[in-house]
């Protein structure tokens, strides 16, 4: 899995470097630079071909669109991962609090109902079994 990403990353870096060098050539063009430019153009096309080949290996990879928004804003996409983890932890803690509260409520309710309706609660416990201690 990581090899596929490394392969794509390598091709992309070479492609970007090639484009950058083309930009330098073009920014102050000289007649002697024409052959170099033509060579770079063909390198660009082969680079695109290599990237196209990498696409077939990565067609199962799904990327959340929210990460794209971070990139479009010029922000580090690792911040998206960080915020996802923080949100997950916060939600986990929230749900755990709810579960703990409901468990305590259940045990308290059963104990109080047992005081008010002892016979019914013994029948209920016989049907449902003894509730685990909260």
């Amino acid at each position, binding site marked *: 899995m990581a090899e596929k990403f490394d392969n794509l990353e390598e091709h992309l870096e070479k492609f970007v470097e090639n484009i*950058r060098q083309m930009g330098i050539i073009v*920014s102050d063009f000289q007649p002697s630079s*024409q052959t170099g430019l*033509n060579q770079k153009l063909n390198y660009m096309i*082969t680079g695109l071909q290599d990237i*196209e080949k990498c696409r077939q290996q990565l067609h199962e990879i799904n990327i959340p669109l929210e990460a794209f928004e971070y990139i479009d804003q*010029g922000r580090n996409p690792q911040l998206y991962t960080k915020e996802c983890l923080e949100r997950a*932890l916060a939600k986990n803690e929230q749900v755990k609090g709810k579960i703990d509260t409901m468990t305590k409520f259940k045990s308290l309710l059963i104990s109080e109902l047992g005081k008010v309706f002892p016979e019914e609660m013994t029948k209920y416990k016989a049907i449902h079994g003894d509730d685990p201690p909260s």
Partner: protein
Amino acid sequence: MTEMFSTLYGQNEAQGPPGSSSLGFGPGKPPPPLQPNQVTMAAQMPPQHGDEGPALRKPGAMNEPFYLLRELPVGNELTGNTNLITHYNLEHAYNKFCGKKVKEKLSNFLPELPGMIDCPGTQDGSSLRSLIEKPPVCGNSFSPLTGASLTGFRLHTGPLPEQYRLMHIQPPKKKSKNKHKHHRPQDPIPQGNTHTHTQIQTHHHPTSFETVPCVFTENPSDSDPKKKKKKRDDDPDRKKKKKDKKKKKVRLLC
């Protein structure tokens, strides 16, 4: 458990007397008057029970007096009660992203990428969102350019117009805070910067049309700390000399 109680209380309100008497809530008390909503609910209840009749009748008959008692749902082992980050072995990732400070800019994530990448993509039309909304034409194969097609790439000599020159310039990199590092003058020049600075530093000879690119070493601040170091080195020496002079004066006076 909560579902059971909610169904019990909910259906008791709809059914009225039969439900309340089965649970033993004041059998001697008169039943509360049914409201129109409850009447319609009570009218609707039997058909619903009729639809689920076989499934509900057996438990109701077995679990007297709890006729509406349903079996508890199968407990899911994985709930919010467990720490999901440790469950999915994400502790390392959590410490990596949340333990340390993650830098804000995109250039910190992609330091080797040339150009101004910290600017929003909407400004120069390079946003990924636009690429998703309007995907380019795909499917055609990439074929190398032939001699005839390369004629379209014959360019005029000379520099680019000013409006296109700034596209490849990188944003200024922050200087390191540790100015006392001795390896600063020996820092290798990043590969990306040599060419950009050659672009800035080209000299045009008046007699020929050829440009001579010169390498611009990115060490403008190296001379300053050296000078500062020299000054700092000089200062304690000066202070020592001053102290010695004072001591000599004091001895002479004595």
